[in-house]
């Protein structure tokens, strides 16, 4: 019998503990030869290594957003998903891994194989995504022509196809109105405001305070939901509506200190001043805890600028409010009255260059375009893809207000696409800060756009993008 002394036991324990720490910290062995260089066109899945008989290939498929979680069970139940798994893929489906967790995983060299609804553009800039051109060329089903053009182009950067449209795409601009509140204010829902001056009159008519001066209802928060976004995959609403050429892609120069942009901030500030800046902040706090447009769903806000998903999401979240929803064109400034503005944009799905089995994961990107997948997402959440054939057959009466968006995609007179600028997150943060300075009267609109321009230029230079842009 082996006799174990206390000292020997302690030795052993210490060795095991030290070994475990070392093992936990050891870098994961990755077959470097299988990893394409950043931006380099990868070989399509068909040419990727096949698994040994009976061996499954583990695929990490991360959606950086939460809502899609509701679809997982239905996804797995589709014949197409089962076929992918029968062909040798073992798909780990993860959602809500957005923001810092996703960025850190990618930066640390441990990304998923497939990722979407996340900061794909940042990943593309960092050379973390595969060029999908060869995959697309080799595909029988996923072709550029099946998508709306702007949506397809949204997955490109400097000649590289870093993503293909998926999950949630299509059009982003519409003014949604609560017909009951509009009717009660004596306004005609069939004759909606076409300019921001007219919108302000509606805003005044729909805004109510109690005897003590507390806000009880308001017309519109121009910076809620799509109206408030900064530059990004959804475009940049307010500068688009005022037709501000805020960035020159040819030279890499910002033109944010534009007179029209100042005019836009001044106009929006009037809306906020009427309801009170503090009240707006309170409304947006509530919004921050839930979904966009929480105050619209609560029937405190009568109008909201939102994308095509609004009818579907409202239907799911608040059916009684959805029943009152009517959508129309977003008003434009008087100088461009008559323009029907629409923005085609959305999200893309990508393969990560450092994903262990990214090449083998390509079938997921093809599957995302299938009717079975799009049906689940549309029915569960209310989102539409960028696949033209699918959208052409969508029933616009399913969600009140949706038909406007379907028609608008054909009737627009001016269209915009995604607004992809390398320092977009910085510009968005500063935009939000400076526009608040304007509606709180601590800065004039012109001072705000001048400061925004200065900050953007400084960041452009300090982040190294000025130099990189010239070089590329």
């Amino acid at each position: 019998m082996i006799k174990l002394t206390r000292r020997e036991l302690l030795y052993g324990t210490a060795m095991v503990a030290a070994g475990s720490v070392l093992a936990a910290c050891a870098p994961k062995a990755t077959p470097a030869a299988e990893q394409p260089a950043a931006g380099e066109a990868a070989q399509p899945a068909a040419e990727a290594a096949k698994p040994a008989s009976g061996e499954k290939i583990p695929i990490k498929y991360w959606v950086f957003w939460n809502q899609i979680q509701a679809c997982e069970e239905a996804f797995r139940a589709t014949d197409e998903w089962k076929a992918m798994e029968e062909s040798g893929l073992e798909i780990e489906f993860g959602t809500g891994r957005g923001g810092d967790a996703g960025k850190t995983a990618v930066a640390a060299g441990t990304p998923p194989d497939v990722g979407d609804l996340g900061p794909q553009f940042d990943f593309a800039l960092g050379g973390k995504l595969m060029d999908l051109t060869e995959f697309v060329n080799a595909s029988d089903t996923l072709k550029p022509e099946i998508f709306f053009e702007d949506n397809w182009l949204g997955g490109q950067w400097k000649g590289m196809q870093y993503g293909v449209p998926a999950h949630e795409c299509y059009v982003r601009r519409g003014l949604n109105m609560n017909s009951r509140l509009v009717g009660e204010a004596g306004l005609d829902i069939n004759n909606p405001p076409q300019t921001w001056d007219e919108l302000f009159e509606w805003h005044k008519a729909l805004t109510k305070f109690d005897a003590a001066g507390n806000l009880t209802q308001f017309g519109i928060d121009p910076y809620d939901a799509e109206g408030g976004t900064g530059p990004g995959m959804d475009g940049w609403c307010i500068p688009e509506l005022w037709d501000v050429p805020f960035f020159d892609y040819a030279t890499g120069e910002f033109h944010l200190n534009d007179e029209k942009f100042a005019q836009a901030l001044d106009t929006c500030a009037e809306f906020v001043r009427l309801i009170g800046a503090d009240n707006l902040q309170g409304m947006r706090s509530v919004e921050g805890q839930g979904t966009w447009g929480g105050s619209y769903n609560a029937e405190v806000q009568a109008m909201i600028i939102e994308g095509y998903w609004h009818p579907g999401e409202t239907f799911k979240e608040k059916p009684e409010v959805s029943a009152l929803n009517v959508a129309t064109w977003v008003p434009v400034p008087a100088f461009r009255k008559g323009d029907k503005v629409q923005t085609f944009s959305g999200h893309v799905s990508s393969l990560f260059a450092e994903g262990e089995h990214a090449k083998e994961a390509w079938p997921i990107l093809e599957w995302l375009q299938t009717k079975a997948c799009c049906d689940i997402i549309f029915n569960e959440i209310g989102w539409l893809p960028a696949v033209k054939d699918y959208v052409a057959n969508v029933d616009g009466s399913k969600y009140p207000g949706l038909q406007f968006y379907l028609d608008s995609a054909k009737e627009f007179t001016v269209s915009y696409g995604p607004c992809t600028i390398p320092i977009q997150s910085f510009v968005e943060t500063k935009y939000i800060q400076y526009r608040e300075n304007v509606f709180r009267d601590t800065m004039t609109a012109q001072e705000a756009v001048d400061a925004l321009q200065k900050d953007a230029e400084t960041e452009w230079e300090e982040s190294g993008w000025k130099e990189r842009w010239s070089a590329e």
Partner: protein
Amino acid sequence: MAEATHKQRMSELGWRRELVGLLFTSPWILGFLLFTLYPLASSLYYSFTRYDLMQPPVFIGLLNYTRLPHDSDFINVLKQTLWWVGFSAPAGVISAFAMATLLNTPIWGRSVFRAIFFFPSIVPEFVVAIVWQFLLNINYGAINSTLRALGFESIPFLSNPAYAKPSLLLIHMWAQGSAMVIFLATLQDVPRSLYEAATVDGAGAFRRWWNITIPLCSPVIFFNLVMAFIGGWQTFTLPWLLTQGGPNQSTEFYAINLYRNAFSYMRMGKACALAWVLFLIVVLFTVILFRVTGRWVYYEGD
């Protein structure tokens, strides 16, 4: 010869003891090297680079440091954080000490009250933020709903730049359970005989508290104050969840700005420089605090 062998054996034994000691402490040493020293050294290196998390860092010398004084955001967050540290550290200590003093008095249900006052410390900060959001929101908050029902105007606790920091201060003072427990233990250590002697000498309640309780608790007051100062400079969760640095950047504290630079603007090099500057500031403040302790902290052994 025998002596030499004995010395050699002793030396071998000493070496073996060293090895055993190192083996036993190796998990901690390895953990420290890998999870503390390595990240620290890395962040120091990154602070001299332009690093966006995605691409390899590019060495730029001291630029991340020398640009900071010209960065309007940096100046603003320094001002906001100084205000916060200046008020929240003493206010937190005062609040904790006051709660401990009250809970040290012999009242009915004292244990229940102690549990209630300690409770905020064990609730996750996220939950605390959500609860206070629903209490303080200008439009839907419970406090303002009550005010409105009574015909009063709402108070923009978290929506107005002038009220936001004081509102956060209020929440901070409420969540002082940990410091309160330390004070409570200290208060129970104050010898009864001192109070009895003072009472015999005719000292009133305030005089006893001022001349006996405060001096004898001053080392712990100092300890809690130092911890509060350090924590104040690092404040992140509560303002991030409640105001996200607003309204009008009035609660944009140092750690929030650091986080924005690291994960939103993808300026990890600059964020690392900000972290090291923060470290120096905290060290400086702590040294100053230690320097002035002799004037008011009473150590029984001195």
